């Protein structure tokens, strides 16, 4: 039996200006990467020279001088960081052990938009403080996208930047 090839009429496409998925809260990510550990909030502030040194070592631009960070009870570090692509905005968590080796990387939330709004602080602000208990309403039904363009390059670059931060700044902290 031969396949009958159908020219299906154009299907109305749902237009999404914003698609978002929340995976983990900060607390959930902490327990996922460092199960059972205790965390002390220890935000990192970088001066101009430190930023420059990190950029030089990692080859990645340091967008923000401030970073959300926690010390773990085992002298590890837990970071919450954000990366911005052309169409996507990704918050992720990264854990480093006392020696500066990556323990784990977890995506906290992923948001994408097509239309150039992503660099506007207003568009980003609507997600501020969202947690898994407070799911975003944007196209919550869209769970499975095939042929996605998702690239993890920005996250990989972000981790490189965190490793340089640890090597140049945090390793020497007592």
């Amino acid at each position, binding site marked *: 039996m*031969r*396949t*009958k*090839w*159908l*020219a*299906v009429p*154009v*299907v109305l*496409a*749902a*237009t*999404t*200006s914003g*698609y978002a*998925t929340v*995976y*983990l809260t900060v607390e959930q990510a902490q327990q*996922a990467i460092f199960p059972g550990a205790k965390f002390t909030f220890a935000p990192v502030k970088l001066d101009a020279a430190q930023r420059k040194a990190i950029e030089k070592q990692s080859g990645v631009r340091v967008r923000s001088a401030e970073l959300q960070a926690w010390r773990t009870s085992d002298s590890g570090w837990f970071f919450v960081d954000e990366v911005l692509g052309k*169409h996507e905005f*990704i918050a*992720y968590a990264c854990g480093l052990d006392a020696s500066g080796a990556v323990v784990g*990387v*977890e*995506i906290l939330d*992923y948001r994408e*938009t*097509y*239309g150039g709004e992503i660099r506007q602080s207003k568009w980003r602000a609507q997600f501020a403080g969202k947690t898994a208990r407070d799911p975003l309403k944007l196209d919550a*039904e*869209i*769970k*499975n*996208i*095939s*042929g*996605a*363009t*998702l*690239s*993890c*390059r920005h*996250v*990989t670059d972000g*981790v490189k930047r965190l490793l340089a931060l640890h090597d140049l700044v945090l390793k020497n902290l007592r």
Partner: protein
Amino acid sequence: MTSCSKTSAELRRARPLLGTLVEIRARGVAPATLDAAFAAVARVHARMSPHEPASDVARLNRARAGETLRIDAWTWRVLAAAQRLAEKSHGVFDVTIAQSSTGVPPAGCTTAGADACATRAGDWRDLVLLPRPRVRVARPLRLDLGGIAKGFAVDRALAILRAAGATSGVVNAGGDLRVFGAAAERVVVRHPAAPGRLIPLALLRAGALATSANYFDAPRAARLRRPDGRRLWLGRGSVSVRAPTCLLADALTKIVAAIGPRRAEPLLRAHRASALVLTRDGRICTSEEFRDAA
């Protein structure tokens, strides 16, 4: 709240692997099962990424003519599947393609052998599978498993969810996905001309679905070729394939993109697969099976 939420709540995680964001969802398992599923994906990444110097693929690409290598059992399985598809597609599917598309001679070419390398670039026939886990490289090769390893990784991760007793599960590696479980999963695909627009593709209850679009991901398209050197059948559109496994779905999209759904039909049928082509202007060409398959 603890024991019953474990079985009813859906766990959902994403990690950066295989050059994309890999998402895993499951019901009826503990979070550690998702860790194990991600570890399977990480194993595929570590053994099959050409960019990891210690990977099997990097080692094979450095191998000299006639060299025999022991490789990871999973890499061997992917190569065996790739070779079967290469044979059945008469070389349309060829995991050694990266070399000729870049025009760069394989790393393993010695000065003495440079002429031989230049006259005929190695292809899939120069990769000889010996009893597992060994392979022989008859001619220096430039392998790239980008068109098949991602699907295999999805299959391995899903197998772990199943083995752990998950009642349902979805593994999606940048658009190559496989599902199982009670509820049908609605899958959408991006409009080729407007990636922000999503077009409903299918309801997937079991099995896999992969999509290749050759303008989103030009390097991947560059891995496709026709044996006669002619242009790809697929212009600026996308090809989605449903198949029992994600390895097959992933690899078959490359074959359909190369020679078109009609010529690929015997191969699709032989693998219980079906295809859907979406053109840049939003027209859909599909077989009945694609939408009907449960």
